[in-house]
């Protein structure tokens, strides 16, 4: 099943299961992204609400419905629309449980079906802003594969806290078998896609596929373990520590801006807490807006060549001391 279809199946299964669950967003009935297509016909128009272009309002609307007992998925057409809703997500929904001493819960999923770059969309449509939400302590999910997308979306919907769920644009066309029966991938559990003993490569989102391809390419030379966090917040530090315990080396491959990004968090936590034999490395975006021209865009995004160089470098580095 295609990743995108898996998202649709997750929504459909959960809407069938929980009659209170509803979807809001722009054009969610016609569904430009295809994910919410048919849901209005299947579950009724009052379960799939097309909203005026008012992101702050409809984000807060979901909070209000959640406070009144509903679960909600809020779709955003572009990752940068989360900036408009940032106050409502990070400063309202996320904080309400604490601020009310545990009275309130806000089980809302902030859903971007197609985050990150998709060649040619330029600076305002290509951001991958998950690190901002992780910084705010908001649960943040970024599945790399179709089955994980399914299981994590189900888990996110059932979760009692706000969850930011980004489906990387570059992962949408990928395929993976997805069981017919509903299942959950619990938030906070990583996945080792490929075992290896020379180096742990943490690859984030769609870059998992790229890292796996590189692991194949380098198989004769280097044994790469490919670690997919799946959930960025909370992060599966235990699984990572176990992996690094085996490999002693770490490279992070991350399609977010470099500074204060998820890769920084992973490197920092590993440097503090895990037994590294050599200095770790990040391969990330630079902190630049994505330029329009495709040549420039590709130069601004992290690449497989950069990853290969970083992996080789880290593996060859002397044990430090």
């Amino acid at each position: 099943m295609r990743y995108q279809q898996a998202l649709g199946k997750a929504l459909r299964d959960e809407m069938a299961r929980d009659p209170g669950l509803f979807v809001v967003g722009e054009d969610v009935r016609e569904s430009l992204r295809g994910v919410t297509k048919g849901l209005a016909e299947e579950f009724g128009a009052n379960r799939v609400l097309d909203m005026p272009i008012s992101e702050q309002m409809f984000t807060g609307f979901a909070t209000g419905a959640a406070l009144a007992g509903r679960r909600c998925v809020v779709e955003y057409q572009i990752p940068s629309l989360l900036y408009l809703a940032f106050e409502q997500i990070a400063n309202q929904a996320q904080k309400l449980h604490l601020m009310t001493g545990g009275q309130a819960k806000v089980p809302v999923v902030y859903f971007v079906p197609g985050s990150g770059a998709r060649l040619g969309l330029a600076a305002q449509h290509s951001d991958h802003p998950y690190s901002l939400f992780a910084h705010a302590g908001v649960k943040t999910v970024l599945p790399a594969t179709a089955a994980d997308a399914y299981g994590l979306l189900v888990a996110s919907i059932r979760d009692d806290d706000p969850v930011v769920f980004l489906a990387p644009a570059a992962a949408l066309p990928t395929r993976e078998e997805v069981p017919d029966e509903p299942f959950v991938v619990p938030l906070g559990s990583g996945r080792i896609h490929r075992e290896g003993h020379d180096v742990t490569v943490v690859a984030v989102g769609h870059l998992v596929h790229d890292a796996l391809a590189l692991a194949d390419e380098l198989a004769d030379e280097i044994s790469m373990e490919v670690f997919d966090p799946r959930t960025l917040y909370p992060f599966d530090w235990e699984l990572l520590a176990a992996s690094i315990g085996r490999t002693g080396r770490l490279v992070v491959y991350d399609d977010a801006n470099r500074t204060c990004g998820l890769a920084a968090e992973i490197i920092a936590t590993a440097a503090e807490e895990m037994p590294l034999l050599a200095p770790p490395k990040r391969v990330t975006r630079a902190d630049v807006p994505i330029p329009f021209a495709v040549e420039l865009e590709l130069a601004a995004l992290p690449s497989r060549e950069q990853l290969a160089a970083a992996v080789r470098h880290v593996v060859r580095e002397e044990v430090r001391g």
Partner: protein
Amino acid sequence: MTAELYRTMRTIRRFEERVVDLVNANEIAGVTHEYVGQEAVATGVCAALQRDDVITSTHRGHGHVIAKGADVRRMMAELLGRVDGLNRGRGGSMHIADFALGIYGANGIVAAGAPFAAGAAWTAVQDASGVVAATFFGDGGANQGILHETMNLAALWRLPVIFVCENNGYAVTLSQARSTAGSLIERAAAYGMAAEAVDGMDVDAVLDAARGAVERARAGEGPTFLECRTYRFFGHHTAERTMKLGYRTDDEIASWRERDPLLVTGRGLGEAVRAQIDEDVEQLLDEAVEFARQSGRPDPVDAFDHVYASGLRPRSGVAS
């Protein structure tokens, strides 16, 4: 009824006055925004609401929360940051809430609670529960974009929302004349919703208007906008007392004080009734302060409790 309205207003007034004393005595941390002068608005609006109806409140929220029926003892405990506070000491003045009474919380961000009211109102329609949602905001809040976005949706979907603008003439130091083009009533009316100006110093007028709005809302006739003209007798917040700010004249304050809703409504009650209520209120608030002071202080080891509804525990800021 008048006696009950007076009792509520008196409770708010004296609650606020005690709060100021406790802030000055450093028993309450931070700042609070006094509701003194505006009591008729919260009191009139909430008197038109039922227990299950929803309100969203503001930084200046004590009046709304009291009028909606919250236990003043647990409110006071909250302001003192105690474990028996409505929010277990986690929220304080700007986040005080009681979901059992539909009080979706004060809010530290101007107008940010407005869309919560729309979401709750929509849910009420879906559930056919008959619940209506009132959202309070100031003249300053009326200029926030999110409020317009919410008015549009509420009008478009005919949601049972009551937009209660407490126009006290100022957003901190900025007068309404310097903040607001045109007319708030006309803005609301342009969305196709019922909109009226109300004398916010007259609790009966507010109650009347609110009843009309609630009726329309419950009848499926959509939202109403009430611009309640009122005044705050003191500074923007408790900290303003030590600042020398000259944005309002003494004359202006004095002339509004003549319309003090407690005086006006109190006069109508007769001295004996009024005195009895005042005494009751004093006793209640004595109890509230006592209750709050007796309540335990939170244990620092619990600082990471209640962060996630799912029970997730955050990591510490230092690795172990």
